[in-house]
């Protein structure tokens, strides 16, 4: 399955069969009543779903434009939307008889969510993390260890998220018989982008229902940050058929537009093939993948999910970038007006939503996916405010 020309399965031959096994199991289970019930049970009682759709009254009044709603994924267990996907995939892995989970993590959020889901189901969890990220994110490394996971530092390449993914793929090529690769975003070879999207779509499904109850209407715009793009796809997807709803993805503009200074793959990258998918990547003329930067560690990835590439190509969604400084400003703004610390990733979406709301009418509605909480970013913010 592809999204237009995007996506696909660009992997070494060894991984074709494990992907087929996953695809087959997922296809069989996704509408299976028992599986759905189990998933719903854990989403409700373990993760804390449904999350509120919160009307940001103070912020709305301060801006004086469109009504701003926040989808409160930050309230979830683990502090971010990541758990929606890890519970789903861990259950799937259990059905497939896999006893070990492997995952990549950049900032550590997905690693933590994988550790939680794995421990819940009694599985061995090994998390690959770039050696540089291990150094930068000591607290999350410690959290993963407390949750029973092993953290394996990755010394190859640029020692960050993309190299962690490479290393998981290498591990999987020899361990797939008993191991599930629990990918953390809507990236990678098929069926991962579609499967992770399905698990994350609960965000948008709830949002739509909640807003119809509160306002009796659809939103005018939905805004979400995009690294790999899982929280954005999750909230966008149920609105794709509602043509009146603007879908806006916000990438990390970082420190500037030079290569290595940002992570805006859709805004600044070009088509390429890596991590099993055809999508947009930040790269040089020879196809060597470039370095990235963002103040938000979760956006620090040189590629993007293939469905986003497709949304951009078909103009169903718009993509733009917000820089480190604006994101930081939005982080402080929400903290002071609403008493909510947003994740720096989500602050990118928030910054754009604030700009947008200013230009919109008072009876219009903007929904922001507040994909995670900002407690994890205290050190970064402290450093930036010095």
């Amino acid at each position, binding site marked *: 399955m592809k999204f237009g020309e995007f996506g696909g399965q660009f992997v070494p031959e060894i991984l074709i069969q494990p992907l087929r096994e996953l695809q087959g199991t997922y296809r069989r289970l996704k509408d299976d009543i028992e599986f759905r019930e189990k998933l719903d049970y854990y989403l409700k009682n373990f993760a804390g779903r449904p999350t509120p759709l919160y009307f940001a009254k103070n912020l709305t009044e301060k801006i004086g434009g469109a009504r701003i709603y926040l989808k409160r994924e930050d309230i979830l267990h683990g502090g971010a939307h990541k758990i929606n996907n890890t519970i789903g995939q861990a259950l799937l892995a259990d059905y497939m008889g896999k006893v070990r989970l492997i995952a990549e993590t950049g900032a550590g959020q997905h690693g933590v969510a994988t550790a939680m889901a794995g421990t819940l189901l009694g599985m061995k969890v090994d998390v690959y993390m770039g050696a540089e990220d291990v150094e930068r994110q000591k607290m999350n490394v410690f959290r993963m260890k407390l949750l029973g996971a092993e953290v394996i530092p990755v010394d190859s*390449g640029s020692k960050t998220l993309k190299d962690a993914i490479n290393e998981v793929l*290498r591990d999987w090529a020899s361990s797939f018989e008993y191991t599930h690769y629990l990918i953390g975003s809507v990236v990678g070879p098929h069926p991962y982008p579609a499967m992770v999207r399905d698990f994350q779509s609960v965000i948008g499904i709830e949002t739509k229902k909640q807003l119809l109850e509160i306002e009796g209407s659809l939103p005018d715009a939905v805004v979400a940050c995009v690294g790999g793009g899982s929280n954005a796809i999750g909230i966008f997807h149920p609105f794709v058929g509602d043509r009146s709803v603007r879908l806006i993805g916000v990438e990390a503009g970082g420190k500037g537009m030079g290569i290595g200074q940002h992570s805006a793959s859709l805004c600044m990258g070009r088509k390429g093939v890596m991590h099993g998918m055809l999508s947009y990547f930040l790269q040089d003329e020879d196809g060597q993948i470039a370095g990235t930067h963002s103040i938000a560690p979760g956006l620090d990835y040189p590629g993007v999910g293939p469905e986003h590439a497709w949304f951009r190509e078909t103009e169903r969604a718009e993509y733009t970038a917000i820089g480190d400084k604006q994101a930081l400003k939005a982080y402080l703004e929400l903290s002071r007006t609403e008493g909510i610390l947003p994740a720096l990733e989500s602050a990118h979406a928030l910054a754009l939503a604030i700009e947008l709301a200013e230009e919109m009418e008072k009876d219009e509605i903007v929904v922001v996916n507040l994909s995670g909480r900002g407690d994890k970013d205290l050190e970064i913010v402290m450093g930036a405010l010095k």
Partner: protein
Amino acid sequence: MIHRPALITYITAGDPDLNATLNFMLTLDKYADVIELGIPFSDPVMDGKTIQKANIRALESGTGVQNVLGIVEEFRKFSDTPVVLMSYYNPIYVRGIEKFVRDAKEAGVDGMVIADLPVEEAKAYLDVCGMYEMATIFFAAPNTPMERLKTIDEISSAFVYLVSAYGTTGIRQDVSKLAFYLIRRARKICKKPLAVGFGISKPEHVSELIKAGADGIVVGSALVEIIERYAKNATVKIENKLRELKLAMK
């Protein structure tokens, strides 16, 4: 392209630099039936530590796709031994499949093998290779089903590259049983020559596999490891290694 028993030797282009690569190729040429030349890539997911490090060394020495083609052109002044480019798909895709294959052909490349391009994604590439008479080589793995083996055989014009075990490239103590099972299955259904690679470093590996029915052996990490250790001065050690392996083929 290959006749039993064939020795196929892999090195990464530009490791430790381009001049050294040309020298190494001339050394390989004395023993090898095919020279497989790796295009360095920033994210080599199919490769183990040894070749990963070679990729980094090559990129750090400034090796780009154009340089690799230049080396082949240079090599062609001395030898007509077949050269096969081994690449990840992105450098090919980004250059444009047709431009890449045409340029490679003009430089004197005989065939190509791509680490992360499975059958399903290969249509455009196959069309172009057909057009420019570029020989194609595809991987088959121990878990590749029969039906798929057949397809892989059909689209591989030069030979089928059998992956000896699960995991990545890199030296292994012994040849996995999986390699023998795969050779047995492939022998049943494949019409093209079969070359076995991944983890092969010792003479006994080579003789076991040839005896089991392999038409060719691919040696990579064992050579790259020598280059890692001795850098530009690796030629003598490479030659010793190749002599040893070649002897085991008889």
